[in-house]
């Protein structure tokens, strides 16, 4: 199949629809309005449901219902809207309902601004809502990946009965690039769900609930969740390594920023500095092994983010004190360019060589 030019938001929708998503619930917020816009046109065409909910809270609870009934369901929003969804996400995680939540991050905190940012890393990976839970978090860095990862998110979420999140910065949403779309998957091809509340009575009656009031029942339930998260960590960690084998300095970033880091690494190499890039693709589970491995040979790490420094905490845990980890970040919707990263990388090397 030949490639077509698509917006990141449209690619996310195509990835969802082509892997059986038949229910979308959303509420408008910049910079992801093209997602509900696209879904409002294409959901009815494939026999699916589109609802513009009265709020983000309503939208996530509609996902709870649809997902619980066994339908592949999705909602999307941007940072402040995703904060509103957190209660619902925690309930969904406890009730073990698969679904996909898309967060096209904008600058925060608060209502912040509408330009790209990566300030929701903690919220996405550490459990933004209450209680012990995790999401499977995928971070696309191109429009093709926006499509492919959304497609994949539905399978992962169904497989483990853990909600999945697509965490992308505002640039991914607006970027247009060539995409090769996966074929439309027939619904009959999607594995049946023997737990879904899809209308059984009597012996077939099934219950999905996030209220487990007896401590002797809640503890084993939470422990089961833990087992699932461990299994996900064992099977699903993904990252991309770019020129890391001989690197003196490892730049690390996710999403669009990783592409800026690749350009920076190319510039650094031309100037005789051996730079490499590790790009986590799954932010949860975090691909820590790639970092501990690189810590054997690299002199220093530089975490580059559109935040005050969030992923750097996971990088430090993974590097485990073996080598210094430095930080370069921009906030407020400003995006660093390659030269800023080049300068920060050189500074990091100077510092480590001066023993700072």
């Amino acid at each position, binding site marked *: 199949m030949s490639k077509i030019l698509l917006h990141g938001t449209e690619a996310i929708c195509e990835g969802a629809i082509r892997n059986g998503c038949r229910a979308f619930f959303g509420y408008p917020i910049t910079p992801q309005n093209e997602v509900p816009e696209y879904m409002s046109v294409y959901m009815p065409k494939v026999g699916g449901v589109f609802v513009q909910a009265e709020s983000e809270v309503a939208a996530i609870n509609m996902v709870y219902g649809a997902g619980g009934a066994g339908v592949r369901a999705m909602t999307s929003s941007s940072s402040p809207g995703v904060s509103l969804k957190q209660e619902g996400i925690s309930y969904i995680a406890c009730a073990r309902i698969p679904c996909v939540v898309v967060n096209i991050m904008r600058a925060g905190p608060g209502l912040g601004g509408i330009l790209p940012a990566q300030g929701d890393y903690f919220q996405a990976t550490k459990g933004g809502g209450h209680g012990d839970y995790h999401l499977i978090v995928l971070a696309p860095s191109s429009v093709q990946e926006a499509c492919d990862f959304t497609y994949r998110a539905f399978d992962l979420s169904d497989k483990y009965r853990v909600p999945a999140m697509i965490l992308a910065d505002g640039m991914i949403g607006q970027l247009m690039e060539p995409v090769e779309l996966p074929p439309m998957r027939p619904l009959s091809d999607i594995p049946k769900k023997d737990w879904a509340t899809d209308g059984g009575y009597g012996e077939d009656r099934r219950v999905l609930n996030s209220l487990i009031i007896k401590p002797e029942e809640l503890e084993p339930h939470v422990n089961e969740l833990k087992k699932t998260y461990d299994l996900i960590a064992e099977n699903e960690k993904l990252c991309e390594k770019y020129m890391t084998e001989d690197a003196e300095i490892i730049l690390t970033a996710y999403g669009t920023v990783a592409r800026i880091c690749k*350009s920076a690494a190319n510039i650094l190499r031309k100037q005789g500095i051996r730079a490499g890039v590790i790009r986590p693709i799954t932010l949860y589970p975090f691909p820590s092994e790639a970092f501990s491995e690189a810590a054997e040979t690299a002199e220093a790490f530089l975490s580059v983010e559109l935040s005050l420094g969030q992923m750097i905490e996971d990088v430090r845990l993974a590097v485990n004190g073996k080598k210094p980890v430095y930080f370069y970040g921009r906030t407020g919707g400003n995006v660093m360019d390659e030269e800023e990263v080049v300068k920060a990388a050189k500074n990091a090397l100077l510092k480590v060589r001066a023993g700072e």
Partner: protein
Amino acid sequence: MIKILLAGQGGQGVLSAGKILAECGLKEGKEVSYLPAYGPEMRGGTANCSVIISEEPIASPLCNEPDVLIAMNGPSFHKFTPRVKKGGIVIVNGSMSDCYAGRDDITVYDVAANDIAMEAGDIRSANNVIMGVLVAVTKAVKDKSVIGCLNEKFIGKPALMEINERAFRMGKEAVISD
């Protein structure tokens, strides 16, 4: 690899021209990226987009140092000209801007796109006049790809197709005859 920054006033067709460029690159089997700036602008505000056309996979989609700047009006010309790479090219719509760049390490093409567009039949085709200039000067994409894209875009409006194609060709001639 060529990095092109297109800037102008909302409604001048800057984003459409950028999309057409990206589509042309795609038609020619190249790697492309199109990144619009989506600030809180309203109609009449500023608009700009970054287009990269490359033989290799594109790393960063940003054009902070473009090879080519297309400036459809004065404010865009003065805002972005300092950012153009040494030895780069600026194509400025002379109908809506002066052409004093304040630096001599770039080449400025001053084309009265609005006037030419009116001559072609519709002032709204000024963006395609500039596309003609761009293709003539940089050969970033082929004529037939642009014409093909315009054909697809105006499939239901043959009169507009004709005007836009004429605008494109007049843009090309404007610089070739210089």
